[in-house]
């Protein structure tokens, strides 16, 4: 190949590539135009898709919010020794001193019944209701922080068993255990959300696939004629794939709008509840990257559904 031939070939390849890009651009915009020409059908499909996607998104954001609430809880090995009701303040104090001598214990804090009551009144928001009680139902507590070296569960269990033997102690609770329980519940919840989202994702795929199937039926002549003039499968399916893309993309955007509006409606009552509990809980919205991810997932699922249908149906469509 001489220099001129090579240059000519390069130019031809470039022209082919430009034609290819132009064809893609045409597919992208003509499919959007086609959707807008049947506004009723298109908006019905897009709404159904948007509702499915926003359901999944809502579950996600609810779990994210609860996780935000529970995420601040530090998991520590702190133990609470609840003392029997008849143990006096002095006896409790003495027991605390005694426990502090234990080689495995780092720090000890004794909370009297009265202190416990004060603390509870301040933090729970039930102050007035508690005043109505005749007696103080709360037990005295010795909070024990084990040495850091005690990392393994077995050692914690051993220490716990030791404390349980003490006659003054009613029961022992390791804080970590209920944090763990809560975290397990959250794990189940987020996994449940994942499964439900998976189902909804399938719904999005199938709804788009079915829409594309109908579109394919409506445009059968176009498919036949294109085939007869030598169009490849990928050429024929391109505009349909773009239609699927737009359905998913617009539905994804709409779903984000639905989720955001719902959160905005919930924001002020949540804030009110939070102040009632002296909390500083702030409702979590979808972040920008989550918004982009939502759009990407929605359009990918829609394109996937369209592609699956096209892959099987286009072969069946043979010109007569």
């Amino acid at each position, binding site marked *: 190949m001489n220099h001129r031939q090579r240059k000519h070939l390069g130019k031809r390849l470039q*022209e*082919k590539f*430009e*034609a*290819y890009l*132009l*064809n893609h651009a045409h597919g992208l915009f003509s499919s959007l135009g086609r959707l807008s020409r049947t506004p009723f059908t298109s908006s019905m499909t897009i709404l159904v898709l948007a509702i499915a996607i926003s359901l999944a998104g809502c579950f996600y954001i609810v779990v994210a919010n609860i996780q935000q609430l529970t995420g601040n809880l530090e998991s520590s090995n702190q133990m609470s020794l609840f003392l029997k009701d008849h143990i006096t303040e002095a006896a409790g104090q003495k027991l605390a001193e005694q426990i502090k001598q234990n080689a495995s214990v780092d720090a000890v804090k004794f909370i009297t019944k009265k202190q416990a009551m004060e603390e509870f009144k301040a933090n729970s928001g039930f102050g007035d209701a508690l005043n109505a009680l005749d007696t103080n139902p709360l037990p005295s507590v010795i909070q024990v922080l084990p040495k850091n070296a005690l990392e393994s569960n077995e050692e914690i269990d051993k220490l716990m068993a030791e404390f349980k033997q003490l006659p003054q102690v009613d029961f022992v609770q390791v804080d970590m255990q209920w944090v763990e329980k809560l975290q397990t519940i959250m794990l189940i919840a987020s996994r449940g959300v994942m499964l439900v989202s998976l189902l909804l994702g399938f719904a999005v795929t199938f709804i788009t696939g079915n829409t594309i199937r109908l579109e394919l039926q409506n445009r059968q*002549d*176009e498919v*036949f*004629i*294109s*085939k*007869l*003039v*030598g*169009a*490849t*499968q990928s*050429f024929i399916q391109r505009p349909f794939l773009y239609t699927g893309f737009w359905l998913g993309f617009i539905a994804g955007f709409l779903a984000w709008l639905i989720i955001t509006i719902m959160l905005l409606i919930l924001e002020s009552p949540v804030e009110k509840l939070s102040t009632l509990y002296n909390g500083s809980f702030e409702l979590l919205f979808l972040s920008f990257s989550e918004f982009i991810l939502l759009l990407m997932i929605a359009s990918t699922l829609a394109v996937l559904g369209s592609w699956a249908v096209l892959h099987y149906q286009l*072969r069946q469509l*043979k*010109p*007569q």
Partner: protein
Amino acid sequence: MLRFDHVCKRYPDAGEALSDVSFHLDKGEIAFLTGRSGAGKSTLLKLIAMMEQCTRGSVMLDGQNISKISDRRIPYMRRNLGLIFQDYKLLNDRTVFDNVALPLVVCGVNHQEVSRRVRAALDKVSLLGKERKYPLALSGGEQQRVGIARAIVNKPKLILADEPTGNLDPDLSAEVMHMFEEFKQVGVTVLIATHDIELIHRLGHRELRLDKGHLVAS
């Protein structure tokens, strides 16, 4: 250019549509395909257009065996053909220009080239100036000419025409036939399926006559 060797086509429920058909068309040859309805004309055209595959024998197009061609290669092979239909098969929601441009667009021809060649093809069928019109705004004869322009725009080696004059008056038919003879001049092979016996006798081209699936004259 086109060769049929002992071609048989059997449909599962309709029996044998073509039996032992053999013939050969040279480059730049014009031939008429005749026979009554149901004689196998459409089947023969479908075999060439790769819409069907023959049960036995072989069909060679431009040196390639298309009787056993894979689905993947069909589109590329079809680009050597120009198909003209009795019912035109135009896309009514696209302009004349876009209809004629379709065979070029599917091949990935660039924009300027498409524009140039579509105009040349429309000029050939005397429809230049109607590019922006939609097919349904044209007369039957004009629509047929759009179909012809689409068939020739890609400079095919073989033109297949199925009853191209079926819906045209005698003057227009003669005009279309004259056009086919022009293609012959530039080395294009033309195969025309038709009922129009008078036209065949007047033009005096080769005739392939089918009767109940058998080639009785060639």
